[in-house]
């Protein structure tokens, strides 16, 4: 199991190193996952506007020994956070009391300091119109790019809880079960198992046999992921499952294809899709090690799929995961080939491979394999069962 205090200290050191390297004097963080990364402060999962109005704010000053946290959620603060770094909440989204935000900044930064911020509210912009803000994403993104062994352990555990709860959800899948019934079973179980939070409305999308029978899309490719409803699941429905829960601030990412039925058995075509999916992931994993570019991984995956790009146009072959459910590295996005060529794999990067195999007329297969890049190759963080397609692969 991870050593959480050591993990927080190492993350904080990385942020300090990046502040130094990028010539930024400090950070003011308002986004949930950035606050979690910088401080280790826990807070309950909340819907967007509630999370905004009652947000925690983190202040990281260059050279300071610990982050400052302004929060409602005292019970989520790490035990080792010094008392003089714990503060009453600020409300950067409302004008009333915004002078306290100004004062908090003045407490930590000298006039003229270059401060990175991840989200600017208008009340903040009104009272600090002349501040030369940097974008905190550069500092936070660089620190988050590779994970410490403790962070990898958190992702692995988060993923384990997710997968165990999915066993219970899959058990109830029969014709007549609704998508929301699967959500109910999954969420109940995942909290019993010890999840800290649910991060995303679980997805149980029924995939039509052809693109045209699915939702209309801007790019003509598949629509995914669409939102769960009380839709009934019926015999033979192909379901692409995707769910993310959180443990100690770390995301997980469960992706599998299920078939609705009593003891469903994939037909020949479906088994072929699964094998092809496996071979696409394996083609990338075969070459994955430090110093390999994201572009080479994408190229290997495309070649293994006979030259057809095996991922959806608005997505990727793989994405990173950490305190965000999708973060760098991103492999195969619209950031383009030059970007991918410059993205070089490093030990400690975590990648979620999620290629899609599609046969127009026979629907398709999608699963997700999570790996961490090691000094010489990779280690798998997600489970290796793919029922009902393959028990072990």
């Amino acid at each position, binding site marked *: 199991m991870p050593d959480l205090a050591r993990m927080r200290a190492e993350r904080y050191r990385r942020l300090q190193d990046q502040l130094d390297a990028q010539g930024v004097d400090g950070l003011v963080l308002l986004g949930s996952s950035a606050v979690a990364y910088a401080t280790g402060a*826990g807070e309950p999962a909340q*819907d967007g506007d509630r999370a905004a109005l009652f947000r925690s704010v983190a202040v990281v000053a260059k050279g300071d020994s610990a982050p400052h946290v302004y929060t409602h959620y005292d019970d989520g603060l790490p035990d080792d956070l010094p008392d003089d770094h714990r503060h009453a909440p600020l409300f950067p989204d409302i004008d*009333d*009391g915004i002078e306290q935000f100004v004062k908090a900044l003045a407490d930590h930064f000298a006039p003229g300091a270059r401060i990175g911020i991840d*989200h*600017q509210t208008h009340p903040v912009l009104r009272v600090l119109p002349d501040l030369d803000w940097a974008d905190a994403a550069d500092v936070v993104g660089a620190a988050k790019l590779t994970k410490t062994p403790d962070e990898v352990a958190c992702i692995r555990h988060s993923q384990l809880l997710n997968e165990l709860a999915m066993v219970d959800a899959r058990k109830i899948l029969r014709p007549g079960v609704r998508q929301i019934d699967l959500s*109910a079973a999954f969420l109940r179980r995942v909290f019993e198992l010890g999840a800290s*939070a649910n991060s995303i409305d679980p997805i149980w999308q029924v995939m039509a046999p052809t693109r045209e029978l699915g939702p209309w899309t801007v790019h003509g490719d598949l629509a995914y992921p669409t*939102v769960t409803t009380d839709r009934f699941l019926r015999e033979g429905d192909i379901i692409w499952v995707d769910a993310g829960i959180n443990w100690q601030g770390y995301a997980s990412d469960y992706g599998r294809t299920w078939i609705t039925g009593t003891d469903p058995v994939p037909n020949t075509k479906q088994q072929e899709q699964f094998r092809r999916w496996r071979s696409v992931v394996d083609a990338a994993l075969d070459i994955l090690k430090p110093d390999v570019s994201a572009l080479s991984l994408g190229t290997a995956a495309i070649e293994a799929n006979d030259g057809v790009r095996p991922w959806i146009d608005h997505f990727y072959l793989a994405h990173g995961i950490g305190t965000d459910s999708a973060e760098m590295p991103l492999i195969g996005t619209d*950031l383009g080939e030059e970007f991918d060529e410059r993205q070089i794999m490093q030990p400690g990067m975590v990648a979620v491979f999620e290629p899609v195999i599609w046969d127009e007329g026979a629907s398709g297969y999608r699963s997700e394999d999570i790996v961490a890049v090691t000094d010489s190759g990779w280690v798998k963080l997600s489970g290796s069962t793919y029922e009902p397609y393959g028990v072990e692969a």
Partner: protein
Amino acid sequence: MSPAPRDRGVLVGTMGLEDDARVDFARLRADRREKVLDGMERHGLDALMLGGVGNVRYVSGARQLGRAGVLPFAPVAVVVAEPARVHLLSTWDEGVPPEIGYEDLYRMNWNPANLAADLAKIPGVREARRVGTDGLTPRFAALIRQLVTTAELVDAAAVLTTARRVKTPEEITCLDVASAIAEAALTAMEDALAPGITERELLGIYDEKVASLGAPNPPSESVCFATPTSGPVMFRHLARERPVGDGELVVLAPGALYAGYEAGLARTRVAGRSGPAATPELASRCARGMDALVAACRPGNSGADLYRAWERAGNPYSSVSLAHGLGLGAEPPLIGLGRGRDVTLEEGMVLSVQSWVTEEGIGGCLERGTVHVESGGPTTMTRYRRL
């Protein structure tokens, strides 16, 4: 269209009925859009670029994937005054209402420059002179100025906060349904509460209930905490693994979202057969505080009136908010925690009002309700037996 029911209770359900859907969602969206376009005209805004979950939902009516937490600003919906259209970041049409056409959708991009290029193509955006946003990032501010429009970027809150503050009849119906779902969750949690159960198990039961009722995205997972029978009593937010002790006062505080609208309530219950001897006194103090706060929720009253009502009921400064707005999630005004004394309550607002009292040696007691500020006075929309 069926006649408007005399018994509004018939609207409080989630199934479509063969004579009519219960909520006229087309009218709900049209009313909201009209308020937004009126506000844009009043404030001289040519366009809005919005990223807040509630704002995006308010202007678009789209059913988008629910996520926990708040992200930095990114333009997910764009409202243009002339031609009056709502444009939406959605790669597909599922979940998008019919008044937003295919040509009004722009796709998910990972490259911010591609997103900016898509925004620049929206008719009316490039030539806009004043654009309201609900936030910025240093990067997006620069990208918008370089690639999208040279318009002055101003606060969209003058339009959105005003539009959202006063609820339409359809919005009230949605809040009624959300209230009923939250009450159902409270029943499930109350039934399960017994010494030995953990807060995390109660959270699982809560989530299971709201999901099975079709509202799988909870407004908050801060839905229960046991309070100690000795030592200082703190309001807690994160579910623990520790089993609830016999005789402890346990706060059960479920909320629910229906069509994006949030309602919630809280009640405190004793785990086991009997709580500490002075529990009834604490419960009655909690109820008095709640009654005083709710009674102050009248049109024309100010936030200061709620502070005064709370103090006159014999309570010290509250460590949690006394009241805040509800609609598409939590929203201003915020009253309590030193904020909101100057806020004026208006007819048609909906507030989450809460009374939190503690006593060392007994525990804590929370009562929370969803309160509709009506012309004749406050109506508490959530109903449940008190402690």
